[in-house]
């Protein structure tokens, strides 16, 4: 089972868009996007709970779609667009989802929160007025052990209203 030769000195190069900015990074080629984000790019906002795709804590947006960064080879991300929790805010302001989560108790230990935030953002980008069932389903790949989910749903719903009213007045 043991790899006979020691870890190769090879590194790979990746150029991609991270939170709206072109980013270049060198990394060990066996790494997943999760590992590169956390270890080579210091973006530790994206978490891990299992590394096997079984908990959702590592979710990021890839070309706008929620995916599990622990199951993506960094090598497969060349030229692609990645959004993490660090990139949710804009113009120095938090995203309405972040404000709502903070106000309505949707984050307790906060560990699953980044993944849920980006997943919820993808939902609202695609469907600005989701029903409770649609929110539930969109988040069905994110485990939370603290909240029991209900305050999370309410926070998403509050953000929906906030975004809608902001758009109206804009």
């Amino acid at each position, binding site marked *: *089972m*043991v*790899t006979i030769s*020691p*870890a190769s000195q090879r590194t790979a190069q990746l150029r991609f868009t991270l939170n709206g900015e072109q980013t270049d990074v060198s990394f*060990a080629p*066996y790494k997943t996007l999760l590992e590169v984000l*956390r*270890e080579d790019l*210091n973006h*530790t*906002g*994206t*978490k*891990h*709970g*299992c*590394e*096997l795709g*079984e*908990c959702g*804590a590592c979710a990021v947006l890839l070309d706008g779609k929620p995916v599990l960064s622990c199951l993506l080879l960094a090598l497969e991300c060349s030229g692609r667009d990645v959004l*993490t*929790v*660090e990139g*949710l*805010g804009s113009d120095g302001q*938090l995203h309405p989802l*972040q*404000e709502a*989560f*903070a*106000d*309505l*108790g949707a*984050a*307790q*230990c*906060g*560990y*699953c*929160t*980044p993944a849920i*935030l980006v997943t919820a953002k993808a939902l609202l980008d695609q469907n600005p007025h989701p029903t409770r069932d649609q929110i*539930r*389903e969109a*988040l*069905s790949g*994110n*485990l*939370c*052990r*603290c*909240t*029991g*989910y*209900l*305050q*999370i*749903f309410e926070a998403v719903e509050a953000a929906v209203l906030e975004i809608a009213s902001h758009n109206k007045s804009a």
Partner: protein
Amino acid sequence: MPQPTDPPETKSNGNEGDLRVIGRPRRRVDARAKVTGQTRFADDISLPRMAHCKLLRSPHPHARIRSIDISRAAAYPGVYLVLTGKDLPIEYGILPVSQDEQALCLDHVRHVGDPVAAVIAREELIAFEGLDLIQVDYELLTTISDPEEALATPTPRIHDYGDEGNIHKRVALEFGNVDQGFAEADEIFEDTFFYQGSTHLPIEQHASVATKDPDGKLTIWTSTQTPHYLHRALAKVLEMPPAHIRVIATPNGGGFGGKSDPFNHEIVVAKAALLLDRPVKICLTREEVFYCHRGRHPVLMNFKTGVKKDGSLTAMHLQTLIDGGAYGSYGVASTFYTGALQTTTYHVPRYRFQGCRTFTNKPPCGPKRGHGTVQPRFGQEVQLDKIAEKLQIDPADLRLRIAESSNRVTANFFRLSTVNLAECIRRIVKSSGWRDKFRKLPEGRGIGLACSAYLTGAGLPIYWNKMPHSGVQLKFDRGGGVTLFCGATEIGQGSDDVLASIVAEVLGLDTFDIRLYTGDTDLGPVDLGSYSSRVTIMAGNAALQAAERAKSLLAEAVAERVGVPPERLRFAGKRVFDSAAPENSVTFQEAVCLAEARFGTIGTVGSYTPPKSAALYKGGGVGPSPTYSYTAAVVEVAVNPVTGWITVPKIWIAHDIGRALNPTLVRGQIEGSVYMGLGEALMEEQEFRRLPKKLSHALVHKFPSILEYKSPTSLDMPEVFTELVEEPDPQGPFGAKEVGQGPLLPIMPAVANAVYDAVGVRIDEVPITPEKIMKALAEKKAGRAPRFGPSHFPHVDWPEALRVPPPWEGGDGNAINDAPRRAKPAPQRTPEKDKVLSS
């Protein structure tokens, strides 16, 4: 006759209408950091030259280590260091009476996953590859897989200590003349229940980073709920003065009791960091978290309860057989907990408790949310349902009749402060539509009710001492800022917010004005840790005292300036003003400067020690608490009578909380507890697989993954309707009681009771699964007892019970027969039949 004690000096000072922070739904102080992903969890920490550690774990459930050859691993390119048991031989453990763990097993491995060596390398992958190069020569020992096997297999001993053989601990307590109590009963009920083990499954895996500071002292950041206890363990094992060790509990990504022991990996990285003089990190895989475990003990219970026709209880006799796993952990306390709180909800005039914990070759069990009281609560509440049915009393009405009330002392000498159980029951009976639904819903739909109580902080510390359980220091700076230092640990429950809100309320500030440094043994006074729901009451009361003292000092200084007596001053809106003439005021910042000019540098401390317990007997240290929370829950279920498929659409829950310091957080704790209770009720199982003995000695965790260990998803969560009953309790800061654990307890028995209402079968076991329901339905169809569950409680050689007369029999909290420790049993025992109980 002991009386309930007077409340401590630090009373809550709020007049209801005056509260500006307490009681209002607020964004918690650490919310912004969490929603921006900036909260620094242990694995987020990266330091220059940091090395990575992996642990080699035993593949065998029980074995001696004959030899370990680390030479090939040590020579592997990229490996810096390999450690084995001889590098860390000193034993440690959370309880003084069970210091039975070694950071790396020296010569005896006791469960699959027990660590035996550590590889520290440049990269985690290299360390992982190095593990396979370590040769361990094991001598296999008999595998002991469950308590019955442990009882029957005294050797080989898993530990050299304990009652005898593989029995870790037996306890027996008797409060009052229990036999007489049974004789007075109109009916006697005897039921056996089983509660399966479960684990905490925090989303954050355990992680630690240790380093030798620039000045040569040891610092470790780690995901722990109990930095103070870890601090002591590190000092002991590393043979270093505790003053040269700093433990920083990083915010936990969930704990639930699973991060409350000092752990092997923490000690190993500390040692490695000291030896290498470079930072060392470890992050456990999910599977390794299952091996740390310290989760809910599987408990087999036998309840014998005597009742009068009107439902009042005359006596209770509870026996518990507890599967402790491979180490002591909190197990002795857990053992007592499986008997302690049965008397706190309904009046039990006479009570006998016998508990037995055995060692087994599985990951050790310890405290999980509700710690040992959850299992017997299940049994008690389901049995009450059976009693209610037989006596033809509505289960809610039965409980209302026998519920305890405020300011009483229980048979086992626990002082009850505020008790609003009855009100909780009334509320959910109303909101759930209980009267219209119980026994009235169509076949396949059912409704069940259950109640519970839980401690607000363990009344005694883990290690005996007379010092405070929590301390808070406040620093005031001339800029008007307040800094709070406390050892309390934020595990998601909101402890930082609790502390900030109390100080903000007293001093008239916003919580945003307060900086918090918590969980750091260098910076803050000792707080024993985030367990047993102690933080709000203990750290909270300490914070309250520190804030009140500061308020006094500031008031005195301000009084001189504005020329009014200090008592007339109010602190609100970041100002200090004369209540009679509010325009006569200074800013809070000015108040600090005035005080500093008057007194010198300002700083205050507060501390908290729980009131002395009335339970003076041996074993009475587990269970007492300054006050108890109460909960009542109604669960509605739908059960498919053909497949046994069970879904839970709605849950109503009422919680006697004293005062909700922050209703947003309180709701979160209640819903989170309901969620976790539902997980245990329906799907969580820490289950093990014993391979066919002829082919293998293996005893492995059946599925140590977050996929196969089932926890509810967003799709599995029902609607939850929460109500709070708020009668401020004099013991709590601003009257607050606990909320982080109590609401979990009634869920499982309420589900069981609802299943009976739906399809007429009793599942006397947790989890309550479709397979069990279907089997019970088949039994029902065949005309046999419509039940699934254990019917056999094995024979245990119980020690002679400590006899403690309850208050109403003239007791004073002492045992009248302080019996000496049970002598070793004689070689020949008189054979006794196992107790076989009809279901």
